[in-house]
């Protein structure tokens, strides 16, 4: 890829609905807040939603495809966020696109974004087919997001295998929708179980949080309005870790400190 100092980070999961787009939107805002010139590239042009989560759905005029076909300049296609001018969105294409993009097109567009940004987040479509291959072609490193559920972990494993063969690294993991109470009762895969199985370093833990739904309803990511809900804090911390800051991970077993939680923790003691 290009020799500029820009970082190209793929956000992928394999399975749909585990929180790729929500993570991309929140990280985009949080990174821009830290002064990083950030671009979010929606590589999911069939079912694009990043615009909706960022509240920019009415401002899209052009797409990456228009830039590639020289219908417009890159600056015209980029949609600047109202409150965070350091954040720009670029949709890869629209659902009615006649010609599908190729991996080379994605590389070209990412390189163009890299010239005027410090970081490019690529929101990968679900699945491991062409959409994934296109998005991965433009990336140098990856964040795999998964949830503590068997189907999500299995799909994440497939994606990690594909990223490895492409030489994309580092690959880090975000564990989303963690329910501390269920984990304490051993009714949900533990954080260590997932990190052991997938053998990836943990970039962040996001607790299950109703505020995520509220924020998507409004098209205002949680990191935008200084919310201190659990998920907002987690997204903020992930952004700081991406920038190299050493922020300790939360311990889900210490989230609820009642007598029951203490008992549950005792029951989880490894005896052999």
């Amino acid at each position, binding site marked *: 890829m290009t020799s500029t100092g820009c970082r190209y980070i793929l956000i992928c999961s394999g399975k749909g609905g585990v929180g790729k787009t929500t993570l991309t939107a929140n990280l985009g805002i949080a990174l821009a807040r830290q002064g990083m010139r950030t671009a979010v590239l929606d590589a999911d042009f069939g079912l694009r939603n990043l615009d909706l989560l960022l509240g920019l759905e009415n401002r899209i005029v052009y797409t990456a495809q228009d830039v590639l076909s020289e219908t417009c300049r890159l600056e015209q296609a980029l949609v600047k966020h109202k409150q965070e001018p350091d954040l720009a969105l670029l949709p890869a294409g629209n659902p009615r696109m006649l010609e599908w993009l190729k991996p080379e097109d994605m590389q070209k567009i990412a390189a163009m974004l890299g010239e005027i940004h410090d970081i490019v987040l690529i929101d990968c479509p679900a699945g491991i087919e062409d959409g994934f291959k296109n998005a991965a072609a433009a990336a140098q490193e990856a964040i795999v997001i998964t949830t503590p559920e*068997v189907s999500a972990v299995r799909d994440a494993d*497939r994606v990690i295998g594909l990223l490895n063969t492409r030489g994309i690294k580092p690959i880090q993991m975000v564990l989303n929708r963690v329910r501390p109470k269920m984990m304490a009762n*051993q009714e949900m895969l533990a954080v260590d179980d997932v990190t052991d199985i997938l053998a990836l370093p943990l970039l962040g833990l996001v607790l299950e949080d109703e505020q995520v739904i509220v924020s998507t309803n409004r098209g205002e990511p949680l990191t935008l309005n200084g919310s201190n809900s659990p998920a907002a804090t987690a997204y903020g911390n992930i952004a700081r870790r991406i920038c190299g800051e050493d922020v300790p991970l939360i311990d889900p077993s210490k989230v609820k400190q009642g007598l029951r939680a203490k008992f549950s923790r005792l029951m989880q003691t490894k005896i052999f």
Partner: protein
Amino acid sequence: MTLRDFIDKLLRRQPASATTAKERLQLVLAHDRSDLNPELLEQMRKEILEVVSRYVEIDLSEGDVSLETEDRVTALVANLPIRRAKVLPTQAAGTDAPESPEVSQEAEETAPVSEAEKETVAS
């Protein structure tokens, strides 16, 4: 094994669903990563047992050939308790091999021996 798992086992209760989930995942991922389907694995298991039992008498009820994964490396693990070494037909039919009776006796005394064969399949 956690304290909870231990108590569940004592009371013969169903294990915690997280434990079941982990076990199921490890198994399915071992298959996914090695691209071996269960039938192929079963066939391979049969053939391995067949070959091994040609040389040594193994405890088929205790024997186990499975895929295990750790740190994204898949290993084929065969755990085959040996009852006793067989007197090989070539040795039995040929000139009285001086060492073969000794070997079989030794094996009998030390049985069951667990043999772990590990073969790394692509990570």
